[in-house]
């Protein structure tokens, strides 16, 4: 590998983009290590505190510092002035109390498995994508594709979120204190999406499984999304979940609308629950 030159990588087609003009032309370099390191879960002490001032740091530098602090056992970290930069605090695979004082740009908090995160500002598109476990609480608004493809954990936005919230959700819980945009719950496969405000058009479009609860108005339902009566178990679950985060349904939990999949897929519906898990 050491002799693999950039010319060779170009010949092999291992480039990211090759567009006309002044567009990006970045080629794989055998000497570059940063994108080829093994993800790691660190053993941290929650009582060990640290801060990072991100004002003059690039995304890579912020994430490097965060990783170094976790590596040295810090379990409670505060990031100041994140400045809506993209892809901050991603790939955290251990327990961690993380507070971000400010707002995040796109793809923040992706690929989390374990940490408890609080963002005091707003987050851009695709926050907490692919989260496996842990909690993420956003105090203000969030952009589109909030919680795309999450598999576990609790993802909370106290404000309103954009379109396609919980797209491809495979587990976990998404709680939205305000409104959501169009196509929320699109292709949902498992888990729960709770909207305490209004939901945009095509809610739950093409959902396979999972449950959506809406406290406000629904602009329209998507293909194969159907309403089902609220049951005692739904109310009890919502009560416990909302209490955890100090949220309330404006018109009472029993008056929320429950949306499930009406899809009749022979190959899917004839599977045993354990087999469904494998398919999903």
């Amino acid at each position: 590998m050491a002799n693999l030159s950039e010319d060779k990588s170009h010949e092999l087609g291992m480039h990211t983009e090759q567009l006309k003009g002044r567009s990006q032309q970045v080629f794989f370099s055998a000497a570059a290590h940063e994108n080829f390191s093994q993800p790691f879960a660190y053993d941290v002490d929650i009582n060990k505190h640290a801060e990072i001032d991100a004002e003059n740091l690039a995304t890579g530098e912020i994430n490097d510092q965060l990783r170094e602090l976790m590596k040295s056992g810090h379990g409670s970290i505060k990031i100041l002035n994140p400045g809506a930069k993209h892809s901050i605090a991603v790939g955290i695979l251990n327990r961690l109390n993380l507070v971000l004082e400010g707002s995040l740009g796109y793809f923040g908090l992706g690929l989390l498995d374990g940490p408890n995160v609080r963002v005091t500002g707003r987050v851009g598109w695709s926050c907490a994508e692919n989260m496996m476990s842990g909690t993420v609480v956003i105090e203000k608004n969030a952009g589109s594709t909030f919680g795309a493809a999450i598999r576990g954990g609790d993802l909370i936005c106290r404000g309103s979120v954009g379109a396609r919230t919980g797209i491809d959700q495979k587990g976990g819980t998404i709680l939205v204190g305000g409104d959501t945009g169009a196509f929320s719950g699109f292709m949902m496969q498992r888990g729960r999406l709770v909207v305490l405000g209004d939901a945009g058009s095509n809610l739950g479009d093409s959902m396979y499984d999972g449950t959506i609860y809406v406290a406000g108005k629904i602009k329209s339902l998507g293909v194969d999304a159907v309403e089902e009566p609220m049951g005692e178990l739904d109310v009890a679950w919502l009560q416990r979940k909302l209490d955890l985060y100090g949220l309330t349904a404006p018109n009472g939990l029993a008056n929320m609308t429950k949306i499930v999949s009406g899809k009749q897929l022979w190959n899917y519906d004839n599977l045993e629950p354990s087999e469904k898990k494998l398919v999903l």
Partner: protein
Amino acid sequence: MCGIAGVIHRGDVAGIGSEMTSMLQAMKHRGPDSTGFALYSAPRTEQSFVMRFKVAEGAEARSGFAIHEQMVARKQEVDKRLAELEVELTSVGEATEYAFRYEFSFAGDLRRLASYVEDIEGVEVLSIGHALELVKDLGDATVVSDQYQLHGFSGTHAIGHTRMATESDVDIRSAHPYWAYPFSDVSVVHNGQLTNYWSMRRDLERRGHRFMSDCDSELIAVYIADAIDRGENLESAMRRSIEELDGVFTYLLATSDQLGMAKDVMAAKPMVLYEADDIVVLASEEVAIRSIFGREIDTFDPYEGEVRVWQT
């Protein structure tokens, strides 16, 4: 992918040249091929205009020997034709060897003026307006802003664009913003793709509108120009565009005293918005908005199919 941005100061003027430079530079990663600015100063009197035009592409000007003489000849022909139309020049500025800024008084037909000037081979009118000045060139925001000395530009509102070329060339002609020829002071920037571009273009061409590029974004400018031509107001035309333009898009549109935004029904292209009593700022990414504020701000995403228009 491209990045778009807009700012409007309500009831005041500010350093919009610097603001847009800062915002667009913060989104350089969304498109480094070219950068464009549509800057609006306080409107001039009814017969006073600013015209921005070019006599060659930047790349063309840097190749060959004959082009330099051709550019001089083309500019002389522009001057001659303006004199023929009894245009009274009040200021002549040369931003580059190929791009010029003229201020003038004119009482005649603006469409005829623009067409007559553009009839010269290699010449393109970028904008004509009482308030609008449209500047676009290859390179990032800082490069273009330095080249055209935009840092000191003061005005009420602006829109801008950083371009990643996808469906048309890397040249000034295909760079944004687009002026809604021949209507003074109307400009457009767009992020997305229009999938019914050719059918709509043919309709508009049949109605007498001209296209200078094959860029789908130009269609929006011409579409709005056509609506204004038929007496429709800006907000109504933008709302209709949501139904009639097919594809995924977010676009910003400005007139001499308004700034508008429209987002397609799929909400597939990003837009972040900050709104206060004295200022509204929009951009494809929040990091651009934050580049002009030294304080914490609350922002949000407009929803699908949303159209908003703000007044200066």
